[in-house]
């Protein structure tokens, strides 16, 4: 696979998207494979969007919302949490690794936490990829 490994990160406008802006202001560095898609709420993301991204070759998909109880729209992140269970359950059914999806909470004032989440995701996918290519050789 020579294609650039990319991660789609759905970022909530009110928290993680702002944190991503703040990460820039603070010049925190993170892997450039992240592609942020701004959404108004983590509850806006339909699981099919996650599947679509994976089907189109994304190495991983993240949904990053506000901490539970801090949703700008009352319960969008709770919705995202319920759907995340569906996504992780069905990922394995559908032949993906559940590691390819991650739901995370980050407030608008936590750029470090966001960057940490990005780094962890990249690290996890790198491990997954090396396992898979090892399988391939065998």
């Amino acid at each position, binding site marked *: 696979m020579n294609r650039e490994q990319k991660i789609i990160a759905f970022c909530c406008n009110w928290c993680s998207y702002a944190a991503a802006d703040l990460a820039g202001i603070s010049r925190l560095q993170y892997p450039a494979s992240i592609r942020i898609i701004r959404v108004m709420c983590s509850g806006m993301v*339909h*699981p*099919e969007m996650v*599947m679509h991204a994976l*089907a189109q070759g994304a190495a991983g998909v993240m949904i990053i919302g506000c901490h539970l109880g801090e949703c700008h729209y009352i319960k969008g992140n709770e*919705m995202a949490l*319920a*759907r995340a*269970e*569906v*996504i992780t*359950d*069905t990922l*394995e*059914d*559908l*032949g*993906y*690794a559940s590691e390819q999806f991650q739901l995370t909470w980050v407030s608008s004032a936590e750029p470090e936490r966001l960057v940490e989440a990005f780094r962890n995701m990249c690290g996890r996918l790198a491990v997954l990829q090396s*396992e898979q290519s090892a*399988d391939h050789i065998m």
Partner: protein
Amino acid sequence: MKPKLNFEWLHACSGCEISMLNWGEQLLDLFDQVEIVHFPLLMDHKYGGQLGEGAPLSLPEADIGLVSGGVAHQEHLQVLQEMRKQCRTLIALGTCATHGGIPAMRNQWSTADTLHTVFTAGTVDKEISPSSAPAFLDRVYSIDEKVRVDVSLPGCPPQPQLIGAVIKALVNKDAFQLPQKSVCETCPTIREGKKKMAPVQRFLHNADYDRDQPVSEMQCLLEQGLVCMGPVTAGGCGGKDTPLCLQARVPCRGCYGPVQPGGNQLLDMMNALASNGIDHRALVDRKSLLRFSGAHGLLKPARKKN
């Protein structure tokens, strides 16, 4: 000159063709207007290597081709490709052709596992199948995964009137519109929202209704806790009338495939349940929600865990 029609069946059960025949007398009118040049179910027409002479597969040219069934092995693929070559307009007939259908359920296992289960497990046979049998593909494909398809006509089977109407429209070069919405569009049940939806129940559970009242007096089956696939399934089975399963007061099984092209009935249904606060994990054998649409890479063998 009458337009020519080609029919083929691949990994199929002949249900689609039987459904077409169910159109009744109107079919005879149609047959007057067209010339059927190839139809293995109805007409004896030798082609390909079937006479043992090893000639290459060849089908007659036609204006309209109808293919039912999915693509499971090399011969299916060859026949399909020949159909595409010979037919100006190609119709995928039935859910097997459009979404893999029931045969694609085997996509949740590898081909080797399937063959082992079917042919060698519990027997003394060592050989899976004769070496002269066509090679199996890695999974079951819908036909649009292999060739360009002009019209997708899902259904298990498709409604007879719909098949007839589409062929008629093509013959007369009329515009036609397939149903775009879900099963719910023509479902007259009472809906109020899913908040009060009962916990998910097994399929063997009966719906709650008054047999003396019409369907329009029955509460939405999903709201009754039955996993009715209506919202995630393409409509059209009842024509403009109440969907067929609903007429029988049983929940929709999803046989028309996803309402969205490229949709995933399993994911959509689970998501709809989870979003409404229903414990989706109470669902037994959730993969069966893809029982009609396992092609397009939706059903896959579970990843091997290290």
